[in-house]
């Protein structure tokens, strides 16, 4: 069974702090994604990665950066946290084999920025 884990379920940070959110998957998937989820807005893609050291911007990358040094690990970095980054952050991994592209989601990290 696919397992996607995120480093924290809940996190409280102060404005201006640097924040690291880590995601690990154990299924050797090529593709990994970071989303944020806000009430009524659905999932919005922040960044994704199709390979180690590869990253691409999603729909809302401003204020975020990512790192993928190893295939199983994809980190989301908030360089200087702001209150409008208070949200639920979801990581997903996806196998890329022809027409199969199901994404498997982690449990989410609820980040509050004070």
């Amino acid at each position: 069974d696919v397992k996607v884990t995120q480093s924290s379920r809940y996190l409280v940070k102060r404005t201006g702090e640097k924040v690291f959110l880590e995601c690990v998957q154990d299924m050797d998937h090529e593709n990994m994604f970071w989303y944020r989820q806000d009430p009524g807005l659905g999932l919005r893609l922040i960044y994704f990665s199709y390979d180690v050291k590869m990253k691409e911007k999603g729909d809302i990358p401003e204020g975020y950066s990512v790192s993928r040094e190893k295939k199983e690990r994809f980190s989301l970095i908030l360089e200087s946290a702001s209150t409008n980054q208070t949200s639920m952050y979801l990581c997903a991994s996806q196998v890329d084999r022809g027409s199969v592209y199901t994404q498997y989601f982690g449990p989410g990290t609820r980040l509050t920025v004070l």
Partner: protein
Amino acid sequence: EDKVVQSPLSLVVHEGDTVTLNCSYEVTNFRSLLWYKQEKKAPTFLFMLTSSGIEKKSGRLSSILDKKELFSILNITATQTGDSAVYLCAVELYSGAGSYQLTFGKGTKLSVIP
């Protein structure tokens, strides 16, 4: 343990057919149920359902929630090849202190053939 189960896991239909996708859940502190369409890049938000018996419609797609029987259905009429995707169901839960989390089902892979 919170659970979201989608059925069927995969479905192949011909263009013009009508399909019904199912999502049942067993969770505590239910807040809403969400449907997403997932194609190559990222899920697209379709519907958010919070009240029983009120149908939401968007073009050929519609969805309804039954909070007594704990399930939702997503209907697609007059299917087109562009409807081919994985459809994800997610349940939003209160997790205390004003925060919430999302639990996703494994998805239904719909293939529409000409």
